[in-house]
């Protein structure tokens, strides 16, 4: 059953030097499954994900032949309708928790905000739910984290807080933008199994954006490979590592060869792209 359907999505930024096309005609369907999006930095992964929530800010604008989520035409929906969808129906784990959490609000306040504001949940219940959500993402001292400010968290903690925050209202669609890049292997496995459980048991749809081809090949059902705003290849995840497209092969060539008896795999070299 299709949860999300996107046809010919385009995102254009009208800059002083002319329009910049960040997404150029992306189409895909998503069921209650795990869809991976890979591609190099700047290929339009984040902009594609944000378009689903219609949260591209000016000077960016979204165009699409069709974009429907669970029967709702996202292109025609009013802002009020969109706001009702955001949170409890569709949510997005933001890419960089260092900048994506409000720096002057306590983590706890940010976690409980949706419960207080939208669901009118009382103090104790909201607190308990937030602590439970932190526990679920393997945070061991949730009470302390609730009292902390974002700058007091490590990168991995920030990512887990972000995931917990977006999972609290039980969304039907979760767009996770590099959700586990700063987590160490055991915690990453734990977080992935939570997401996996939500897809399998609750029928959540998951868009999993990542640089890590091996991870995506292992974890997702299907994969979109993006390059310069276009989908250059769509493959079943188990075929990703044998993909034909030269760009995908290029990405794969960045991976270290299997067979050596080294320690944990370093994955794609991200240093150049992250250092901007």
């Amino acid at each position, binding site marked *: 059953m299709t949860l999300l359907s996107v046809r010919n999505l385009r995102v254009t930024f009208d800059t002083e030097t002319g329009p910049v096309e960040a997404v150029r005609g992306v189409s895909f369907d998503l069921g209650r499954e795990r869809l991976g999006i890979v591609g190099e930095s700047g290929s339009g992964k984040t902009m594609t994900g944000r378009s689903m929530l219609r949260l591209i800010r000016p000077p960016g604008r979204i165009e699409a032949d069709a974009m429907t989520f669970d029967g709702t035409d996202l292109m025609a929906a009013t802002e009020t309708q969109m706001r009702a969808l955001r949170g409890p129906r569709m949510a997005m784990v933001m890419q960089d928790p260092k900048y994506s959490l409000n720096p002057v609000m306590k983590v706890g306040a940010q976690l409980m905000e949706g419960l207080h504001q939208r669901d009118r949940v009382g103090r104790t219940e909201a607190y308990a739910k937030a602590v439970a959500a932190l526990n679920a993402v393997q945070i061991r001292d949730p009470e302390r984290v609730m009292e902390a*400010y974002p700058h007091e968290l490590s990168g991995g903690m920030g990512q887990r807080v972000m995931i917990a925050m977006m999972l609290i209202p039980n969304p039907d669609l979760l767009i996770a933008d590099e959700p586990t890049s700063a987590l160490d292997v055991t915690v990453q496995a734990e977080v992935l199994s939570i997401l996996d459980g939500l897809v399998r048991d609750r029928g959540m749809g998951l868009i999993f954006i990542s640089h890590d081809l091996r991870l995506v090949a292992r974890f997702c059902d299907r994969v979109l490979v993006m390059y310069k705003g276009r989908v250059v290849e769509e493959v079943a995840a188990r075929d990703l590592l044998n993909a034909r497209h030269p760009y995908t092969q290029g990405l794969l060539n960045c991976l270290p060869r299997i067979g050596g008896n080294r320690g944990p795999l370093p994955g794609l070299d991200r240093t150049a792209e992250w250092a901007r």
Partner: protein
Amino acid sequence: MADTDLNDAAPSRVTRLAKQAGGTVFTLLITFIGLLAVTFFISRVVPTDPVMSILGERATQAQIDETRTALGLDRPMWEQFGIYVWDALHGDLGTSIRTKEPVIDEIARYFPATLELSTIATIIGMLIGVPAGILAATKPGSLFDQIVRLVGLMGYSMPVFWLGLMGLLIFYGQLGWVGGPGRLDAAYDMMMQFEVEPYTGMILVDTLLNGRWDIFQNALSHIILPAALLGYLSMAYISRMTRSFMMNELGQEYITTARVKGMPEGRVIWVHALKNVMVPLITVVALSYSFLLEGAVLTETIFAWPGLGRYITDALLVADMPAVLGGTIVVGAVYIGINMFSDLLYRLVDPRAK
């Protein structure tokens, strides 16, 4: 493991603040002594001889020597400075040559008038400037944004005395909606002197404390026009800065996160963004406030407002050096005090501040 990376900051925040307050007070003291060094230096360098200005031209040598000793001018420089600092810290800023009164007593009379005026002006500037700047930032380029910008620009470019005189002409002269120059009508001035206990020197506060509603109303009618004028100038500055801070915050990622959570736009702006805008805004408001407290000389002149700016200017015109320097020290002290206060407030609002 990552969990241990959580800094041990949250529980000890209050103690940390207290420690910082102690440090700030120390810095304040050093800065203040630095300020005194400057005024001391000026007082010893300027061509007016303090002895001559007290005794006049025709004093005998014996009289001159006697006065020099009385003023401590025969002692070594460093000792004089020590005494100077000691006296200043005890509120002794010397004696006015013009009135023969202690400078500190005179300033204690003039300063509350300025304090009252600038405080109301700053409140007006904040209450209008902050919301105007925020609304302008949420709809950049809109008609409202243009209006805010234009009104602000006028505040920057119109001569204050012209605005003040026009204000008096229209609202006092023509319409009679407000009181004229001065802090009170002459009749109320007498009552204020004899019937009201001057706890603070600020008429609005003292009349309320004494339950004199009639005088309060009269004082309010007098202060409203100069306060509105200074408030307008303050508003022009505050709204412009608020707009630019807000524009900056609205471009941050955490704003998108709040929207992703489905928070209504009002909450995104007035809670998420505003909490962040408050941080740099504290400095701006403090700057605007201390600017007004330093004495808006022109405004005080036009409105015959017996404030600190007027006091210092009048003293300067008759070369009353102790009064000028005493006024300067008070202005400096106020500036340092506001700085310290805004610094503490800043730390309180921004958890990232060390």
